[in-house]
């Protein structure tokens, strides 16, 4: 799967998902659950102070990214690992498939990683003839379900319920028990356990890389990342260029914020830290370790007006509060990155041709900005995209552009405004009955399809005030 998950146009994706009542109720109840848990998990903390600290750490890293990338790569190498900087998705997948070829890998186990989705790694490995197995339960379900795309960056199968999952398991892996989550999980675990033991290569993502030690930190609730990292002889971790912290001290802060913001847990069941290859007294761990650092468009965001999006620690708190996401679901975004973070990031990494509608799929309500643990001004970045689309890319529809120019003219000139606002009542008269407009012309139709509009008043407020100030006081 690449970043782009659908060939359909935005409006078609929207229609399909708005009609999916089941998905919508699953998303709505999941959002509610996440929000409640998050509130409980942060209530005893001075969260604003934590947010300031989180922001400071992320901004510091981005300002000194060259330094920390160098330090990280030196320390990975010092502990016997190999570091590869991939400028593009293709460079990354080539490097990794070459390792698979060299190892004559038949089976590869993976723990959850959005960046490997972004670079379409699984497809490349499968083309090589490898069996690639996702071990995160959510990802595993989607993989079994004929590669259904993830709809959420943390809980990828959020759009499915336990009955649907039971059906997938029954059809694909001979499952015969109930739709109890515990039984479903137990079945998957039994199958996956054999896969860990027989895999040639393990591939992980990276929540945070610690520059000071060359370590990779992974946050899971299933412990699957531990097994992916510990059992196969060859381990490959893939990370986005910006996912670095200077030391364990900052890692601790960000992990604490990540787990609280993502799933409302003070700590997840497993925090895995991988440092270097197996040493003499180690009982397990990889004999060979590769860290693949993926740029794929990130360095061109650095230093620009969207830099703050690189502060993101992929917690999905913004997704979990977004009212638009609640109604349209993840697949409407057409990208593996959905919700507010996806609406900002997808056009930056994938271009406006595919994603120019996303920045408009927001009321700019600011709920995302409010919950972001590292204080990314998400709604402002969505607005910045609109400005770029309109003023630099010239991609706005002509009708809208004319309307907005007229708006600018009409509201910057006092006389035109006064004249226009006076005229409005007369102009709307044919569409008005009972002091309201129920079926408006042109663009207004999009409003009146859904709601009534009070007709513009013949006596505007300013007319009343005129009389009032001349002594007509009530």
């Amino acid at each position, binding site marked *: 799967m690449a970043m782009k998950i659908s060939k359909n146009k935005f409006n078609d994706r929207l229609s399909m998902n708005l009609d999916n009542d089941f998905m919508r109720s699953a998303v709505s109840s999941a959002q509610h659950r996440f929000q409640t848990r998050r509130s409980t998990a942060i209530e005893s903390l001075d969260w604003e102070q934590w947010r300031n600290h989180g922001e400071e750490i992320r901004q510091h890293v981005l300002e000194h990214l060259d330094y920390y990338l160098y330090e990280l790569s030196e320390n990975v190498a010092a502990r016997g690992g190999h570091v590869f900087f991939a400028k593009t998705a293709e460079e990354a997948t080539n490097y990794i498939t070459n390792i698979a070829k060299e190892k004559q890998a038949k089976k590869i186990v993976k723990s959850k990683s959005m960046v490997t989705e972004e670079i379409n790694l699984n497809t490349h490995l499968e083309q090589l003839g490898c069996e690639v197995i996702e071990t995160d339960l959510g990802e595993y379900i989607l993989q079994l379900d004929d590669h259904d795309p993830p709809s959420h960056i943390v809980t990828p199968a959020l759009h499915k319920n336990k009955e649907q999952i039971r059906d997938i398991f029954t059809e694909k892996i001979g499952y015969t028990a109930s739709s109890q989550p515990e039984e479903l999980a137990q079945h998957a675990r039994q199958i996956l356990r054999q896969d860990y033991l027989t895999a040639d290569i393990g591939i992980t993502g990276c929540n945070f890389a610690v520059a000071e030690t060359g370590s990779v930190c992974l946050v899971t609730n299933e412990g699957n990342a531990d097994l992916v990292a510990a059992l196969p002889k060859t381990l490959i971790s893939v990370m986005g260029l910006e996912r670095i912290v200077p030391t364990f001290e900052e890692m601790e802060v960000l992990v604490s914020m990540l787990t609280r913001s993502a799933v409302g847990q003070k700590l997840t069941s497993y925090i895995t830290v991988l440092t270097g290859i197996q040493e003499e007294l180690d009982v397990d761990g990889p004999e060979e370790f590769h860290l693949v650092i993926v740029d794929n468009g990130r360095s061109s965001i650095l230093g620009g007006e969207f830099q703050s999006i690189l502060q993101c620690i992929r917690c999905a708190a913004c997704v979990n509060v977004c009212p638009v996401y609640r109604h349209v679901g993840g697949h409407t975004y057409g990208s593996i990155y959905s919700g507010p973070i996806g609406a900002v990031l997808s056009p930056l990494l994938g271009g406006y041709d595919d994603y120019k509608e996303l920045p408009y799929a927001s*009321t700019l*309500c600011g709920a995302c900005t409010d919950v972001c643990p590292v204080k990314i001004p998400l709604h402002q970045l969505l607005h910045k995209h*609109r400005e770029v689309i*309109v003023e630099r890319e010239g991609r*706005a529809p002509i009708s809208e552009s004319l309307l907005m120019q007229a708006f600018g003219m009409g509201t910057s000139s006092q006389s035109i405004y*006064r004249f226009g606002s006076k005229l409005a009542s007369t102009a709307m008269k044919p569409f008005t009955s009972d002091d309201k407009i129920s079926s408006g012309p042109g663009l207004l139709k999009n409003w009146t399809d*859904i709601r009534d509009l*009070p007709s513009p008043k013949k006596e505007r407020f*300013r007319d009343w005030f005129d009389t009032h100030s001349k002594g007509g006081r009530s």
Partner: protein
Amino acid sequence: MNVSLFATCIVDMFQSNVGKSTVELLERLGCTVSFPKGQTCCGQPAYNSGYVKASKDTMKNTIRVFENAEVIVCPSGSCAYMLKEYVHIFKDEPIWQERAQRIADKTYELTQFIVEVLGIENVGAKLSGTATYHPSCHMTRLLKVQQAPMTLLKNVDGLEIIELPLKENCCGFGGTFSVKMGRISEQMVDEKVASVQQTNAHYLIGADGGCLLNIGGRIERQNLEVKTMHIAEVLNSR
């Protein structure tokens, strides 16, 4: 105190009653209210749609009209916030930024002005029935006026306030979003109306004209019993 009223274009054209109530309320509280005639719109419809250049002349007009005011009061959290945003919008035009700062420093949303500046928590209003209040997004999250409306509403004689379930949910207005992404907006406003209905309140109260046009318009379309009121109208009820 001499108050310059920034009524907003929505109030001027669609909700003159909100403007009247604001004026009468402020006068009753001892203010002298003026309405600078040159005012038009805060510029948000174009600005939020990405037409930054096209909206700047509108903002400059607002700055010119209001820069000599003693205080600027606006019966809309979103538009009041916009006036404060000018400072950031004009960051590359130092002279305009300085002028924008002058108006930002003395701009208040109506309830914020009454509670924080006039220091009044009970305006002596009377309205009998039950009501629920929708805290609009820009006012709550961006302008950060959260307590003032509730403080004033709780002191309205005869009015019982019922908390709106999921009150922090956006109503789906979002300016041009409401027409550009009409289908999503419809889902959002339906969700909001459903929350309002859960309270069985007689009145839905809000402090932002845009949100009230949206929620109220949907309520009208569905012929529901609940009456939509701007907080200025409530506080001016006697």
